[in-house]
């Protein structure tokens, strides 16, 4: 492989990967340090901050709050996103591309603005869900569903719809044809999409900013609030658990779908 890649590019790429990964390595080391904070050179390893995290009310409750919120988000995002992806793969109406772009748009639009809009909407309509888990839930669904649509859409693009049509023409009901033919073929794509929805919600910061309150605080917000004042190594220990969760999720995704194909350009 090395022969096709000029040496300079290889060196620059290694430097780039170091830049991308170094902060993550540092968080792991900071969470495992034996000292009061991470120093150079390091003072040795210990589990004291991991224990401190597991005993801290603040981070542990935030961790479980985020976990619960991510599970709730995952369920709705998977159902709504899969249904929408099915529609987008089967329709030919002219607004199809625009509709797809509309559903994917939360990924790139400012989360602070959408969070602010939802916050003002909850208050002005008197829905009573501002600064509750329900208000956060709605915001997170907006930001997680696009990932389900993308992943399931990729699985559907690889699925030959004539299989389902064959079942239909042989007399299957639409639901039966879907359940027996289509679903088994895209099932792993749906699972991968739901994992994405989970992690995106678990790490979501921007949209949560206006919607969280001291008693309903997701982990990123809790870490941010402490990080503004001091480097608390037990926050880094919480980070280790989050890093493990994300890495495990991505590895699981890789077992479910071909990541290479998923990330490659999906042809319409």
């Amino acid at each position, binding site marked *: 492989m090395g022969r096709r890649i000029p040496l300079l590019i290889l060196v620059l790429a290694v430097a780039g*990967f170091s830049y991308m990964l170094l*902060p993550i390595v540092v968080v792991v080391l900071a969470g495992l340090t034996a000292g009061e904070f991470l120093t150079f050179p390091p003072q040795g390893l210990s589990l004291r901050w991991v224990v401190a995290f597991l005993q801290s009310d603040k981070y542990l409750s935030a961790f479980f709050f985020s976990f619960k919120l991510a599970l709730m988000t995952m369920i709705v995002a998977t159902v709504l996103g899969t249904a929408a992806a099915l529609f987008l793969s089967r329709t030919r109406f002219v607004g199809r591309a625009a509709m797809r772009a509309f559903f994917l748009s939360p990924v*790139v639009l400012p989360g602070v603005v959408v969070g602010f809009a939802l916050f003002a909407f909850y208050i002005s309509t008197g829905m009573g869900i501002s600064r509750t888990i329900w208000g956060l839930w709605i915001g997170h669904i907006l930001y997680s569903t696009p990932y389900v649509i993308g992943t399931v859409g990729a699985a559907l693009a690889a699925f030959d719809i004539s299989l389902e049509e064959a079942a239909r023409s042989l007399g299957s009901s639409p639901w039966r044809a879907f359940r027996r033919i289509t679903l088994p073929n895209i099932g792993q794509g749906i699972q991968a999409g739901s994992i994405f929805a989970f992690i995106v919600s678990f790490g979501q910061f921007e949209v949560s900013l206006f919607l969280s309150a001291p008693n309903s605080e997701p982990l990123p917000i809790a870490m941010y609030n402490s990080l503004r004042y001091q480097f608390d190594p037990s926050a880094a220990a919480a980070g280790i658990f989050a890093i493990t969760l994300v890495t495990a999720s991505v590895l699981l995704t890789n077992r479910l779908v071909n990541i290479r194909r998923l990330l490659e350009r999906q042809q319409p």
Partner: protein
Amino acid sequence: MTTNRTGFPVRHYSSYRRQMKWLLVSPLLVFFLIFFVIPVGLLFASSFNPQIIGQVGFTSELTLDNYTRFFSRSNYMAAAGRSVLLAGVVSLITLIIAYPMAFVIAKTEHPGRNTFLLIIVLAAMQLDMVIRLYGMMVILGDNGLINQALRLVGLIQAETSVRLMYNFGGVVAGLVQFALPFMILTLVGVIRGIDPSLEEAARSLGAKRWRAFVRVILPASMPGILAGSLLVFALSISSYIVPALMGGFRVGVLPIHIFQQVAESARFQFGASIAFILFLLSAGAVLVYLHVGSRRSGGLA
């Protein structure tokens, strides 16, 4: 769809199927309408209401005062300019760092190694930004690892430090960290899509490997470069968390101003006008991105 590919007529249930199809998408359409289009629309509408501290929600009294205020105060105009400059600088630097990474991933043919690299990029992309910034702050802070190392080798005095964050450069460093995976994933697909015979042709005509790269591969990856830069522009101009932590509120960009106006001063209408301006800048970049990358946009990017 009136006939399927096997040639059997399926006309008899086609209209029924068409209605069924819309049932699939209607839940999400309704959800997006109620919790995305209407709230964002109402927010923008309320930016045309007079500023009344503590009041939320749209009223029928219309004015352009908030926008006049924004465009007549130099600190808000400066914040808008700073936001655009920041996003532009980040796009350029991210492109320079990401291109070699994407090139290596695209040219790694061994499936295991290739998947491994993609998993790393995807995991970095999905990891909570606050955690990655924690790492950045431990490295770049006034008492961070770099400053400690500089003191250790005697390059700077014991009690002094080099300012690596809480300034524009620190915010750029954090945003590049945030944007790298998005740029890499956009570029990999485009670079892999370049016909290898193009490079081979250049090589066989006597071009050196480096020259072939600069003259053939780089121009052929222009669509990805453009799309990735616009994507990164939209993402970084929207970020609150990176300027907040890496800039320590000293780098006043639009998202920071929105939060301050709303959460600290309860100026909802003025905050809404800044939000609208930020939204237009971000959505503008996204629209150009969709136009540029319409044939190439991938599943996740």
